[in-house]
């Protein structure tokens, strides 16, 4: 499996199929039992942690803080891979973090405590922190799982814009098939830890593949107003 620069790739699969494990392998947080993960031809294992963090940024599904930081402090944490061991952030780090808040539409929240934000605002602030890493690759684990429809739109539009304007390569694991259809140019499908299909969204997102992945009969058709494929789940198939 290979991911080309500048693409948005979705990882689909039922619970326990290995989506998060695949993301963690891609981020270099897990070492593969067999095989290698390479970034532009270099094995991830051979890249120092801080250097890797300057290339790949990760956005977790949800962020729960043990202590309450301000929004700006969270964004500035994205600068840590760029600092020496005892170095403190300088003016340029502050500028990059503020710019990341502007890009995610959270600049007005700069002084707010993270714990006082809504779920959608929190997710955009965490994405801002990842942007402040100035990595070219963004990995997201179910970024819209606990968000309302409006916030899901915000995150989806934000990711599309970051891909278009900054050329970020984005890999996103998700359960939301319509979110994936709207956002992702290509899909990777996992079942029980195995890759069962990958390719352009228009070819891989089909009734057949959805039935194979989830055991659900679904109607998949292009939605004229939305401009992308739409998935309507119809009924569950008992597989046992």
């Amino acid at each position, binding site marked *: 499996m290979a991911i080309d620069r500048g693409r948005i790739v979705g990882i689909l699969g039922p619970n326990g199929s290995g989506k998060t494990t695949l993301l*963690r392998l891609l*981020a270099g*947080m897990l070492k593969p039992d067999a095989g290698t993960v390479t970034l532009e031809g270099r094995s991830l294992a051979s890249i*120092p*942690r*801080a*250097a*890797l*963090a*300057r290339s*790949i*940024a*990760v956005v*977790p599904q949800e*962020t*729960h*803080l*043990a*202590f*309450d*930081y*301000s929004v*700006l*402090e*969270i964004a*500035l*944490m*994205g600068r*840590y*891979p760029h*600092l020496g*061991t*005892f170095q*403190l*952030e300088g003016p340029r780090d*502050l500028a990059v973090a503020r710019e990341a808040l502007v890009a995610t539409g959270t600049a007005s929240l700069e*002084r707010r405590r993270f714990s006082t934000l809504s779920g959608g605002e929190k997710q955009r602030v965490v994405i801002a922190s990842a942007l402040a*890493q100035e990595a070219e690759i963004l990995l997201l684990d179910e970024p819209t799982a606990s968000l309302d429809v409006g916030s899901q739109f915000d995150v989806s539009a934000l990711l599309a814009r970051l891909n278009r304007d900054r050329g970020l390569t984005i890999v996103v694991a998700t359960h939301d098939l319509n979110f994936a259809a709207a956002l992702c140019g290509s899909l990777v499908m996992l079942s029980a830890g195995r890759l069962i299909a990958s390719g352009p969204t228009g070819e891989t997102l089909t009734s057949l593949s959805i039935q194979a992945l989830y055991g659900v009969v679904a109607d998949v058709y292009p939605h004229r107003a939305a401009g992308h494929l739409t998935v309507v789940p119809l009924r569950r198939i008992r597989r046992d």
Partner: protein
Amino acid sequence: MTDVRRRLAAAVAAFGALAAAAVLAAPLAGSTPIRLDRVFDRSVPFADNVDAQIFFIARLPRALAGALVGASLAAAGVVFQALLRNPLATPFTLGVSAGSALGAMLAITLRLHLSLWGVSAVTAASFAGAVCAVAIVYGMARARHSGFSTNVLLLAGVTLNAFFSALILFVQYVADSAEALRTVRWLMGNLDVAGYRPILAALPLCALSFAAFAWLPRALNLLSLDADAAASRGIDVLRAQRVAFFSASMATGAAVSLGGPIGFIGIIVPHLVRLIVGADHRVTLPASALFGAAFLVGADVAARTVMAPVELPVGIITALVGGPFFLWLLVRAR
């Protein structure tokens, strides 16, 4: 408020001045009044300068011990709270102090009176007890996982605390009443050190811990997001957790062997400091150490003076202040 450099400089200057003032002023309080200008009067030789003798020989060691113990416990509290991702953790949560106490109890009850280079058997045994507790808890946290489970760490620590407390009660029960009284006094915490030697013995351990603390703040900030967030920002999570655990345990063990298990410093001070300077560990950690030093020295002055000529154990003062504060914190938090 956003500039971490400015906040760090302001916090270190303010809390540092407070700590220095506490250490200099504390020896002035006591049954025999002395004056600072006479203490530092160079025209009178030291042998004839009673004020200087009282200041440097009788009282300053106690203030310095208070500063060292206070700084160590407060900083260890900050580190444990971040490591366990639990704002209510204390340096004693993981059983270090219970191990220490058991060691001290055994030394007192078995009447080990030998002392080496100014370090009494009780001090040495209490540090050995702390090392045992740390080894057991660490072994548990590693046994169940290939990594380092902070949940197992917490459960093992709490269980070990209860188990060691039972052993302490048992040792007290079989000891005769004079020794039982000594052990109870030890458990209340006391900074009445005999000269500078015990402080010098604890100092290298504390210095080593603080050197490790200096390396930790960024990792602690990211660990309070979560372990994955830390890993994806270039932190070697397992190594950072190990350094945090061992350095905070060592600081706690050294502090407890010097002053006994003085409670609540490790939780009141970090929370007060966070209310003032925020949660960024690059500021919180040094500020807590300095404020912890000032706080314990101040509490010890109160312990020596509120019921003079009777001297209260300083642990009673910190607990009397800390208990209500802790409850307030529980009600206030979420």
